[in-house]
């Protein structure tokens, strides 16, 4: 069984990261709440502690949600790689249900292991942060107890979602036919697209209703700041629609991006590879889209807010003194918190790309035999990786810009007593950082698969198994 679990390490990594993040965030919130209670001025009010708890929960939920998407995709890729073994076991009498249960069981084991790592690593990191903060006098020494029950919650959430995501991701097991163990017609890894229609209709309804609410929010926001709440609901609904309809949204974007790489054989094959399995590539990129969208939405809103504050500050310097430092600190903290989901998504993409290239060994051998040199093979894989990263980043930037502007308009459009058009602030630093990160991600994601691809001997393509 140990050899079968080896392809599950990406799942473990994602579970451990999500667990660490959740536990760390709860500990830090706990620490801050303890520090606030200890303070004479703020200690009376529970509001701040409550807000902190609420925000921590929101970020943990986002991280767990993204890691669930990533995990179900990883598991689907793992299943595709195991098709032959599963078919063989089916051939000698194992039921599809038992095979699927096996994979879900692995998911539970991996999820529990990841959660345990998360509790240890998250608590360790929180301890380190506390030491540092106290030593630097940024935080008073508190009586915060690390052994508190609330920390178990993110751990349990991670274990359960990994289990659930494994179950969802292992759907394909049911479609493996025993005959695939003995025929050699299995090289194609097409996933059938069933039950898509209901989902697409739901996605369209969500997007339409969401955009309607968003527009309503913006209009109401011109006179009443309550508009931002309506807009928020619209944003959540429409974005959920986009995530649900990823199979429809992402492949055209990927095709478009793929076309940018030119007409050389390496670039053309890369573009085709990026969409050869639309369902898989959509899932591969959607996690990153979520992360980038959240980051962009947040920073565009904040940037618009900052522009307005700066204008106000110029008019009344004494009232708004010191506000910029506060704003910068808030933006930095939130960016890190949201960025973590993007990080998990990025790791998921690296893993899935690695796995899917490994499953293409035979095709890589064929390309070598036909005259692809090692450099062309590497360029092909880097371009495939770039197509996925660029498509996800672009989509996220466009969506985030729209949401961010709508948020800023709804929030600030009526803030000065009369309806105004809010110029969307452009967070250049953020955009620059995202583009650099996308470049780094492209390269990192392609290192392992490219090295692997370049080692493939053309003789593999001729071998008949």
């Amino acid at each position, binding site marked *: 069984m140990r050899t079968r679990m080896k392809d599950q390490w990406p799942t473990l990594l994602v579970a451990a990261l999500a667990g660490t993040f959740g536990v760390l965030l709860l500990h830090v919130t706990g620490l801050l709440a303890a520090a606030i209670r200890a303070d004479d001025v703020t200690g009376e009010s529970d509001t701040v502690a409550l807000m902190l708890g609420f925000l921590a929960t929101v970020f943990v939920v986002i991280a767990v949600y993204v890691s669930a998407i990533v995990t179900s995709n990883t598991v689907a890729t793992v299943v595709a790689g195991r098709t032959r073994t599963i078919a063989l076991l089916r051939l000698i009498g194992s039921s599809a249900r038992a095979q699927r249960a096996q994979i879900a069981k692995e998911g539970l084991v991996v999820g529990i292991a990841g959660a345990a790592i998360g509790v240890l690593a998250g608590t360790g990191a929180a301890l380190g942060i506390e030491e540092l903060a106290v030593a630097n006098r940024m935080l008073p020494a508190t009586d915060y107890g690390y052994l508190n029950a609330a920390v178990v919650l993110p751990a349990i959430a991670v274990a359960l979602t990994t289990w659930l995501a494994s179950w969802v991701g292992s759907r394909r097991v049911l479609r493996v036919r025993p005959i695939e163990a003995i025929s050699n017609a299995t090289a194609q890894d097409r996933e059938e697209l069933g039950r898509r229609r209901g989902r697409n209709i739901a996605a369209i309804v969500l997007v339409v209703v969401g955009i309607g609410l968003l527009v309503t929010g913006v209009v109401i926001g011109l006179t009443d700041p309550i508009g931002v709440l309506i807009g928020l609901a619209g944003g959540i609904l429409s974005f959920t629609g986009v995530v649900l309809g990823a199979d429809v949204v992402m492949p055209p974007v990927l095709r478009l991006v793929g076309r940018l790489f030119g007409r050389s054989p390496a670039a053309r094959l890369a573009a085709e590879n990026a969409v050869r399995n639309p369902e898989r590539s959509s899932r591969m990129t959607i996690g990153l889209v979520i992360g980038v969208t959240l980051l962009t939405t947040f920073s565009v809103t904040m940037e618009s807010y900052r522009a307005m504050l700066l204008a106000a500050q110029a008019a009344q310097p004494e009232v708004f003194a010191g506000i910029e430092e506060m704003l910068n600190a808030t933006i930095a903290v939130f960016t890190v918190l949201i960025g973590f989901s993007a990080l998990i998504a990025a790791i998921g993409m690296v893993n899935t790309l690695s796995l899917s290239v490994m499953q293409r060994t035979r095709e890589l051998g*064929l390309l070598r035999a*036909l005259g692809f040199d090692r450099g062309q093979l590497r360029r092909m894989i880097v371009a495939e990786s770039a197509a996925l990263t660029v498509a996800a980043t672009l989509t996220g930037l466009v969506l985030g810009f729209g949401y961010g502007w709508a948020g800023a308009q709804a929030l600030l459009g009526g803030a000065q007593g009369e309806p105004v058009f809010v110029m969307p602030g452009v967070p250049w630093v953020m955009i620059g950082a995202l583009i650099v990160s996308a470049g780094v991600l492209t390269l990192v994601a392609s290192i392992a698969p490219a090295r692997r691809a370049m080692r493939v001997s053309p003789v593999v393509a*001729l071998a008949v198994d």
Partner: protein
Amino acid sequence: MQIQPSDLGLIARVAGLAKRYGHGAGAVTALDDVSLGLRRGEFTAIMGPSGSGKSTLMHIMAGLDSPTAGRVWLGDTDITELGDSALTVLRRRRIGFVFQSFNLVPTLDVRGNVMLPFELDGRRPSRDEQAWIDELFDTLGLGGRLTHRPHELSGGQQQRVAIARALATRPDLVFADEPTGNLDSRTGREVLGLLAVASARYGQSIAMVTHDPVAASHADRILFLADGKIVRDAGRSTPEEISAFMLSMELAA
């Protein structure tokens, strides 16, 4: 002056070829002092039971694997010492392949697969070459399917596309590895007939590895391998003669 393989009418030649895997007691000898020449324009079959070394011989002659000892020529080029890049370019320009299965790049359509060797070389086919490719599409009955992807084709059609690709660049030598292994016998006969025509009508040199006596009977010349050695060099033979010889080899072993 040294005599070049081409002076002898040879398109490929190996001399004193040996291939051993592993070391010490566990070492396996796949090829043992094999010397042979393939004649230009001929359709040669390399036959032998499983484990006779016929696939290893083909891999080495096609520049896909390197020998433990001996030398290998393609045309007048000594390819024994060539590095990976030079061998890659050699395969691209001077060798064609038809494998048993999984011949085609699944993400490219029929035309894309056939044009791939040209594109890898960074060039478009010349007018002359384009005419030849169109003739191939025509002869192989692929005209109506140029925009089909491999998974939309039957096994026999996929092998035809592979043949078109292998012949498109008019390579020095086409290697076919059990090209009919995955086909029913009627489709298999068609594919073999096409290879034989390519050799007879267009002078294409072809080396086909097979263990099927019927397939080998389409060839001009049949080389029999057993335990890494060439045991017989025969001209065109009937399936019965080939089977009889194979059987006698099995009985002698």
